[in-house]
């Protein structure tokens, strides 16, 4: 988003241009306009706008996009540090958030 910027240079988003077949799915599904189709190939026009939601990677038919999506919830991240990834819970009746 133009008005809302977060930290720069942190996203794990990676686009392998040579694999791109130009279908445009990434441009359609990205909620922040990170991708734009130029000359029948996807180009990352705003890489720092990426929030790692994973929609692009999941919908790329050529597996040209990689990103490690995750929960951006501080409480959950603390749990993974303290309890380890398996034991950290996100959800269930006692969960404070989701």
């Amino acid at each position, binding site marked *: 988003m133009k008005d809302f910027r977060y930290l720069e240079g*942190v996203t794990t988003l990676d686009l392998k241009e040579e694999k791109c077949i130009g279908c445009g799915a990434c441009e359609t599904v990205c909620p922040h306009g990170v991708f734009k189709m130029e000359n029948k190939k996807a180009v990352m026009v705003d890489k720092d706008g*990426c929030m790692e939601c994973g929609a692009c990677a999941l919908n790329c038919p050529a597996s040209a996009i990689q990103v490690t999506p995750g929960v951006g919830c501080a409480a959950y991240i603390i749990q993974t540090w303290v309890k380890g990834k398996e034991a950290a819970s996100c959800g269930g009746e006692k969960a404070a958030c*989701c």
Partner: protein
Amino acid sequence: MKENSCCDAGTGTCSSGIQIQPAFPKITEDEVCCGPPAGPPSSPFERPGYRICGFVDNFIELKSGRIPRVKSVLSISDLAGTVMTRIGINRNNYKVAPGLYGIGNPDPDSPVLVTANYKLSFDNVRKELKYTDAWLLVLDTRGINVWCAAGKGTFGTEEVVRSVKAAGLDTIVSHRNLILPQLGATGVSARQVKKECGFQVAWGPIRAADIEKFLNSGMKADQTMRRVTFTAMERLVLIPVEISISLKPMLWIVLVVFILSGIGPDFFSVKAAWTRSLMGVAALAGGVFAGAVLTPAFLPKIPGRAFSIKGAITGILTAAGILLWYRQDAGLLELSALLLFTMAVSSFLAMNFTGTTPFTSPTGVEKEMRRAIPVQIAAVVLAGFAWIGAGFSG
């Protein structure tokens, strides 16, 4: 008029060829031998163990079964439910039954819109479909909204496929198209859905308010329909929940503040605990206000990219007010403790708000946390020592 006579008769067919059955029969005036007339008979659609939801208008009778037609206007009870869930009451169990619903007068050519079974999502979609005939396929996202569920995988490829098959959608519509909210793309692979159930996913707009425009323009979405926003109103509605999830931890902190406030030369003084903990609680409340209210409200205006920094800034401003208020009652050591405490609480809560925003990446949040949490802990520990120390010297 033709529609009304269908409904009254209860057995007629209407213009679309689909039978309309009212959910509840008209009140009749049965004669009774004594006392006031008996009440109306139960709806023929009620089933033992099931209750008909208030948002159901009537039922569409198909060969394969009965599909509830939902209202496109929200009731007082729907609005009350929205308020409750926004405050944080019954938030984890605010759902509708997953499955197929209809809105307007859907027929085999009508579009299929897919959404989550969180009732707020369901209400947000149906209230925007005042002039549309459509089928509404509600996925079992365990009562979670579309985007969060997509992130968790419950608004996912498998659930779409399962729902399509469970509803027998291929016998209800003649086309093979599904319209999914764009934010569902985080959990749904359109290609995989087509492979597994034969239905083609089209990505609809992000906001339900744009659905009718999207459908009427021939399924075209302009750029604003495909971009997520975070307006002031969108931020403000998130504040009550941020506060309500802080309440329980706050109670424990108040207890700790009370105990620390009483420690002094007489081992523990209840009088000191009482007077001093009031200041500590004010600092806590100030920190919560700065981190969970001011920071979300003024988010884009507050300097700093990291939310922990934004929270520290609103924390300082709020602490300034608290320090001014207590400048006669507290010594320098205590005032410093209050400042550190307010800032740390505000910074932590602001950092937590990253999980509620639509533009922070998990990698960025983790980086921010690794830097901020040690500082927040240090500030609180320092504040604690200063507070106890002041109990002996003050």
